[in-house]
């Protein structure tokens, strides 16, 4: 079994080298396909990451309290919010804590806030929602309570972002599936040409008693090798592109939502395994498809 696999891999390498032109063309096509695929993958992951961030940041209701609202009143309000459906949690945010958060969000420019003679931020109650749909009711209820100055809830904006995000992710998924199918067809065509070029050899193999897998093994591995090489090249290239993109945009990207791009290290570590598995699968499936059609027993 192992001996057979080693023989097949050797033959696959020899065959791939002999048909350099075709092998390179296939590797190039699949690499291009996988690169586009990587970009859509990056887009999809980042959109998903951004959406989660937005949900975290805006799936909340900020209830600003009047300066004269007592802590007992605030505690009562918190208890009543906690009992409402769709509320994950509710907590008191003092004006000091609010300032700390504000400074943290401003990062290295936070020193600008040091010039303020007095903290202008109000005390507030932060309600984190488990279900955005209930937000409107809670926000309206909160606004009508005595001791409440203002209520901030961006339901429509969040819903819009989620809708756009889902659209982008579904679109990316369709493109990814389409590209995978094209890649399988490219490998399948390469193997088909291999089968055609080796017709005499294959017939002779059959005459001297080669088993089906002895004949198919090298072609199966040829497909896998092509898929693997394309995967490795596209991993390297897409990682470089993404790292450069992150360097260029830095933390400035999406500052509106105080979210940045997904860490290159995290994404690249994941893409290595995903793309290697994808390359191997594309190669194996393309080979099998071609062999089933052109290399019947």
């Amino acid at each position, binding site marked *: 079994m192992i001996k057979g696999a080693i023989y097949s891999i050797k033959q696959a390498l020899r065959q791939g080298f002999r048909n350099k032109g075709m092998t390179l063309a296939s590797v190039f096509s699949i690499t291009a396909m996988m690169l586009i695929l990587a970009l859509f993958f990056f887009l999809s992951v980042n959109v998903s990451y951004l959406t989660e961030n937005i949900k975290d940041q805006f799936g909340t209701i900020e209830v600003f309290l009047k300066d004269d609202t007592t802590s007992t009143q605030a505690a009562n309000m918190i208890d009543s919010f906690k009992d409402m459906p769709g509320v994950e949690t509710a907590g008191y945010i003092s004006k000091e804590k609010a300032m700390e958060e504000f400074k943290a969000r401003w990062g290295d420019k936070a020193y600008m806030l040091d010039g303020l003679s007095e903290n202008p931020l109000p005390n507030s109650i932060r309600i984190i929602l488990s279900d955005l749909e209930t937000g409107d009711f809670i926000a309206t209820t909160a606004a009508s309570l005595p001791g409440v100055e203002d209520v901030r809830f961006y339901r429509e904006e969040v819903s819009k972002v989620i809708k756009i995000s889902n659209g982008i992710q579904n679109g990316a998924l369709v493109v990814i599936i389409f590209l995978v199918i094209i890649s399988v067809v490219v490998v399948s065509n390469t193997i088909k040409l291999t089968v055609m070029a080796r017709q*005499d050899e294959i017939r002779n193999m*059959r005459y001297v*008693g080669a*088993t*089906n897998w*002895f004949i198919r093994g090298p072609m199966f591995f040829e497909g896998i090798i092509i898929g693997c090489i394309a995967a490795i090249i596209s991993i390297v290239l897409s990682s470089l592109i993404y790292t450069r993109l992150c360097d260029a945009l830095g933390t400035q990207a999406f500052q509106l939502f105080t979210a940045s791009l997904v860490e290159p290290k995290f994404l690249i570590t994941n893409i290595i395994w995903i793309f290697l598995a994808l390359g191997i699968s594309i190669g194996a499936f393309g080979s099998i498809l071609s062999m089933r059609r052109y290399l019947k027993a």
Partner: protein
Amino acid sequence: MIDFKNVSKVYADIVALKNATLHIDQGDFVFVVGPTGSGKSTFIKLIIKEIEPDEGEIIVDGKNLSKMSNRDVAMLRRDIGMVFQDFKLLENKTVFENVSFAMEVVHSTKRAINRQVPQMLSVMGIDDKAKNYPSELSAGEQQRVAIARAIINNPRILIADEPTGNLDPDTAWEIMQLIELVNKRGTTVVMVTHAKDIVNRMNKRVVAIDQGEIIRDSREGEYGFDD
């Protein structure tokens, strides 16, 4: 060794083989003769299970061909050497590689290949051509390579389909002597041929087929057709 029991094969409307019954013993040397299109090639294709009979039963080396899986067919063919009129050598492989290739298929070790292939080329009288490509050889030399490849794995049966068809009479006779040598080592030989002189000179068993029917089976026969 080879048994045909009421075997028939029809292609569209053409009867290639009709109710053929035949027994070939281990070690036999059988010429299969007949006019073009008489069914000789069908007979050979049926033995190596390249095609299936429409009716009847074929038993080769004790195995019923109708009950074989793809893997069993591969194993069967390891016991059958094949030689063709057009040699069917691989043009991009050297003489050595053309022969060693047959051993690789049956998973022989590199050591066994390096020992047996030169020996076989020597028996065939082409040991000095090991590194040559088929296109650099004469027709006779190419057929010697083909025979070497066919018998390198010690098959129990050698099927030869017009092996002298592309050769001049002297070379054809040399090839026949090699095939007879193979037969003397105990290999059953089934040879399809149009070479009247060779059949008459060899004085072996002759099975004559015409229009898909076995019309003659003689122990020490002659060619018997006018072509």
